[in-house]
């Protein structure tokens, strides 16, 4: 929920903020600095919003959230066997969750390459990579290559570790995300304080 609000507070429209939040939830399952990475991503989005580059292909090609959304929306059997390349993707690990969702939803196998790291994904959402999630998360900018297949792709590298149930984030990063989220809240007014969210202020049973 904090990721959703933070993404919206950073300037992403609600639909993209939802996508970013889902990706954050996926990344937070692993012992990686997902919150710090999300902050860096949201700072970029904020800069893009300030310079008016919030829509269109150029925005998508550098924003992993927008790119992931575009790949997810566009993926179909027409893409099978046709590798796609996106040259300069910032924080490219954030494009992986949409790829996993595509593989699961459409029953595809997927191969991705980020920098020199190979990743394979199958329809059950299982993921193997030639580097750890920590190394992947540390890639700030790289080419992303994606290819879908309807037949199994030989897996590469090691399986991602078992997901955690509880996400961890440094206090400072959490507070920064809360500052972004704060931008989505409406300050109190006299009228809003009186109306509130309902419920009584006294026991009158």
């Amino acid at each position, binding site marked *: 929920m904090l990721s959703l609000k933070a993404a919206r507070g950073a300037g992403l*429209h*609600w639909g993209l903020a939802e*996508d970013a939040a889902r990706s954050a939830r996926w990344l937070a399952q692993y012992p990686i600095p997902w919150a710090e990475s999300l902050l860096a991503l949201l700072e970029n989005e904020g800069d893009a919003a300030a310079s008016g580059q919030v829509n269109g292909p150029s925005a998508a090609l550098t924003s992993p959230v927008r790119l992931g959304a575009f790949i997810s*929306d566009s993926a179909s059997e027409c893409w099978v066997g046709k590798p796609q390349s996106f040259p300069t993707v910032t924080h490219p690990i954030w494009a992986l969750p949409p790829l996993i969702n595509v593989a699961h939803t459409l029953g595809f196998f997927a191969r991705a390459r980020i920098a020199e790291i190979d990743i394979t994904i199958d329809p059950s959402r299982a993921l193997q990579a030639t580097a750890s999630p920590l190394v992947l998360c540390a890639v700030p900018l790289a080419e992303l290559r994606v290819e879908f297949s309807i037949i199994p792709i030989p897996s590469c590298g090691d399986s991602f570790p078992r997901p955690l*149930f509880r996400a961890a984030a440094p206090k400072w990063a959490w507070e920064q995300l809360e500052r972004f989220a704060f931008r*989505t809240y*409406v300050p109190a007014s006299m009228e809003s304080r009186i109306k509130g969210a309902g419920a009584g202020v*006294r*026991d009158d*049973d």
Partner: protein
Amino acid sequence: MQQSDIELRPPELVMRLARLGSMHQTRLSFLRAMLRRAHQDRWMISRPVWNLDSEGIGHAVYAVATPEHQYSLVAFSQKLVPELRTDRVIAEAWDTSYVLYDGVPDAVEIERLGQNVPKQEAGRYTERELILSRANKSVRLFESVAKALAAGHQPDSEEIESVGYLMRTTAVYGNGKFGIADRDCIANRPELAGPFRAEMLTVWLIRAFTVDLVEHCARAMSPGTVASLHRDIRRRLGVGNATGLGLAPFLVKHPILLHRWITAREEALARVRALRTTELTWRTFLRSLEHARRSVKHWHTDDTLQACRIETLQADLHALRTWVHQMPARLQTWDDVYCWSEDNLSLEGQEYTVSLLIEQHGSVVDDLCDAMSADEGECTRIDGTISACQLADLIDRHYSWVFDFDFSKLESKARFWYVSEEKLEPRLGERYTEPGAHLEQPLAFARDVVELRNAIKLLPADEQIASVLLNHSEYRHVVRRVQVVARYPYAEIRDNLIGADLRPIDLLRCKLAFFGACRFDPRSDRWLRICLFQGAPFPDEILEGKGDDWADTAA
């Protein structure tokens, strides 16, 4: 799932807010399903710790042993000055606070929980904590029950019936809030499968604690003369709850879950309607109807509109009774009863009849409880390969109702949903008089679909939606929504949720009916009090009888 020969009532009938806000509990409601599970699996409930002083301050532990896991309600009772007692979610102190713990806590854990649970949101928690809750006394009833018992008497049953609870919960948190366990931790446990199962277990045990506490306080007042609550009177005590706008966005934000809940209820109704009556089931229905008529007489509220509805419901049930007594059972199907209600009764009456019809057919419908969960993540992917023309077609087929609203009129968008900075709670603002509309939450799908449909008109018919969204990410959330609703027809509330005439409590009541709440008591158009578990067995009774023959609609 069995197929019935009667079609489900269509979304255009069922998904109107006025009807959703007229729904009543059924045997598919979550607390009913939880109690049936407890009965069938023979859950053993004990109270290994009772550590309260003569003023009722201290803590207690209720342990629940299911076939595969153990859980504990750890209850803390503290002193609260009356001026601090409030139902508002922004309160910072309560009469009692609770945690549902995964396992049975030892002394060290109880000490840790004692340092944190009374602080509620401000405490720190681990994944052993599954549910967090708090409750305040109904001061008038709690004191009068304690005094009566202390004097050796039973409390006034009329007063018990009219209030219905010794304590009101003001929040019941689960699913990872404030650092407690994420729902995924327990989702695969069979005893906690089903929506809000852990929450229902928590509230059921809180109910037991409230009764034990009042008896404890009575004993402290006068150990020589104290009486225990008679079983019949004890049954009439549930747990109250004050529900405000915090709950309102839930149904909008969980469309697939809403679809599953409504589909299960409608499928249950369709299966029952397809059955012929028998002498036995007809007589049972007549008894249920009599029981229901007596129960509704005890439903009180100061809210003028709801009071009128209750009066109408009483008249409806009387009319239903008159009609069924004129009909011989052998000439009827349950569909005849439903159709008569649809032609002759108010919305409250129609939906109450639905509850009555479903009630006695557990063997036909109870399996539907297994179909009421949902993974909202399953439908997040947008199919952007469709064209603008195809999207327009989806909107015209599944959202034609939005064009009944004229969003050029001020009253059609008079409100906006937002989250307050001060207390981080959902609120409903007046767009033209309050600040903050630019920070509106995305809950106005009727308006947003109209805007999307108008935007599509300007596009080439064959333009791919993926490319539209690349250039217009502001439509992303509503395109996703349209595609979800095309697959899940009961996913959308077919009303304008930002109109001047919106009654948010209709949203609250629908969800609360699925919880199993009764005695809806609106206190304004945006909050209401309800009662949970009134009439239900207590833990020491759960293995008796059939386990699920106690509800207002039961015979």
